[in-house]
């Protein structure tokens, strides 16, 4: 039981690291909390669901297509919304409200288009039979999702630390003002990060029917809060910190579901509040966030 909870928690944790990755990247680069994060994830999930039910395409293929599509959506969306916000008097609060509005728009459109009932994709689509890990058996989908999460985090890591644009991205993360003054095209770097951020949400979304059991248009808000909890547990602006935050969250969730199942829904909310209050710098970070 204990080993099972622990391993399942790690698999889920890797996935939650992926869920929160894009939110963290966008926050790190442009200091904007994308409150529509969970809704982009939901769209990614519906994309996979519809392509699977209508055309019987494997979600893993949809996943690759969605990365391209969401990066391409992210670009114009960034230029439409963010530069105007950053010129305003209080970009942080206004962006929060604006992306909250965007979240409502996406949820409403999804409800109108897909209906409000729950949708799911059978787990066997990703492979047959349970997989054994350390004498414990898990659904294939969990293991596949964990592996994809690792790949995605690895890709972000390589992007940030092994490419030219990634290097510039880190410069913008560390010192936006100085990056501007040294002539880095901050807008372009930010637009790319925005695209990658929501593409990350979409990737997590493709896997969400398997990891969360089902998807609905209204799942976004809860996912956004959970993601926020994960990046707060980890550290802001650091992809590896997000994975650590995800694993801590995933293990805690599994133990809650095993031993206090009826209260497990409370976990993300209480964890978020507790960490913000007790260790406002996150478990692995030291950024100030007090008023």
């Amino acid at each position, binding site marked *: 039981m204990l080993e099972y909870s622990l391993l399942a928690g790690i698999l889920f944790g890797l996935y939650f690291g992926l869920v929160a990755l894009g939110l963290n990247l966008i926050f790190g680069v442009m200091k904007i909390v994308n409150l529509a994060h969970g809704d982009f994830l939901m769209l990614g999930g519906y994309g996979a669901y519809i392509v699977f039910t209508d055309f019987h395409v494997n979600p893993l293929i949809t996943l690759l297509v969605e990365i391209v599509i969401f990066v391409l959506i992210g670009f114009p969306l960034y230029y439409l919304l963010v530069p105007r916000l950053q010129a305003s008097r209080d970009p942080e609060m206004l962006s929060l409200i604006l992306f909250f509005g965007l979240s409502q728009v996406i949820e*409403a459109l999804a409800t*109108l288009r897909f209906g409000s009932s729950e949708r799911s994709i059978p787990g066997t689509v990703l492979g047959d039979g349970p997989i054994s890990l350390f004498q414990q058996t898990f659904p294939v989908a969990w293991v596949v999702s964990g592996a994809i999460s690792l790949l995605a985090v690895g890709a972000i890591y390589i992007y940030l630390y092994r490419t030219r644009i990634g290097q510039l991205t880190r410069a913008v993360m560390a010192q936006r003002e100085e990056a501007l003054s040294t002539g880095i095209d901050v807008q372009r770097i930010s637009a790319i990060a925005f695209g990658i951020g929501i593409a990350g949400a979409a990737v997590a979304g493709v896997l969400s029917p398997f990891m969360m059991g089902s998807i609905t248009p209204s799942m976004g808000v809860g996912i956004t809060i959970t993601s926020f909890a994960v990046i707060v547990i980890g550290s802001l602006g650091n992809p590896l910190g997000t994975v650590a935050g995800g694993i801590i969250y995933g293990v805690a969730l599994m133990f809650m579901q095993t031993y206090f199942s009826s209260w497990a829904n409370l976990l993300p909310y209480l964890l978020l*509040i507790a960490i913000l209050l007790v260790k406002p710098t996150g478990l692995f970070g030291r950024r100030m966030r007090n008023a």
Partner: protein
Amino acid sequence: MRRLAVRPAPKRLIPMLVILVAVVAAFAAAPRVYSNQLLLFNTIVYLVLAQGLNIIYGFTGYLPFGYVGFFGAGAYGFSLAVLHWHTPPLAALALGTLVAIILALILTPLLRLSGAYFAVANLAASEAVLQIVSNPNLTDFTKGPYGISLEKIYNPTLSYGAAVVTLAFTLAIVVYLKSSRFGLALQAIREDPISAGMAGVNVVRGRVLAWLMSALVAGLIGGIFAWYVSVFYPETVFDLSVSIFAIVFALFGGTATLVGPILGVLILYGIYNVIGISTPAYFQLIYGLLIVLLILFLPNGIVSLIDRGTRRVP
């Protein structure tokens, strides 16, 4: 002799009192001439919530996405007092309000957080309260997910009256904040908390008082809502869209003013009901778009069309 420091002039106070009296009188008299009392009641609820949000967001800059948590706490505090202890409605309202204030006190540490952290943590807090109230394990006490039914005390006339009184009380708080040095101090905290401290303002005390005042009015109107409708589910009184509506109404009109949130509610909630769309998703779509457009093109609300600096608007 030294002259007294120039206080906010009474000439600013009088128009605000006129607006207060006119709005309250209109809602007190309206049921005699307009038959849809539920619509009037809901309008009052949103006027109170939009102004309550204005108290904390407009004057101190804290945006409580989970503002509905106080509304729900008031509704449940009221209902549980009636159900378990057969408390008379007015006393139960006091208890419901107290529950909301206690919740606000528990959440006071959130005020240490800045901007987005406060907003999201507050949203999480209201979701947590909903999860607790609707948990099946607590059905004996809270009725869990099955909701509340209070037919025995159903009294639309009296509860409508209570709502009108609450509206007057809430508007009076905003008038006070617009015309007192305490209100100016809160806005100074919003502008720059460090400078506010150097102006001699007790920043922590100011924030906490504004927070408790805004929780108080939301809890009170939440209890009255429970009384008026008398049958509801946890999702009804902890519905995130209640927070959204209050935020949109206040923002649309213009925060840190008396007339802004009133205009916001009357115009937007009016349109909402006149159009009478029956699919909630369309509302959500329209309100979401409205938020986006407001932030992009009119971040200080429609009152900023009248005057560039909204601080002069009553």
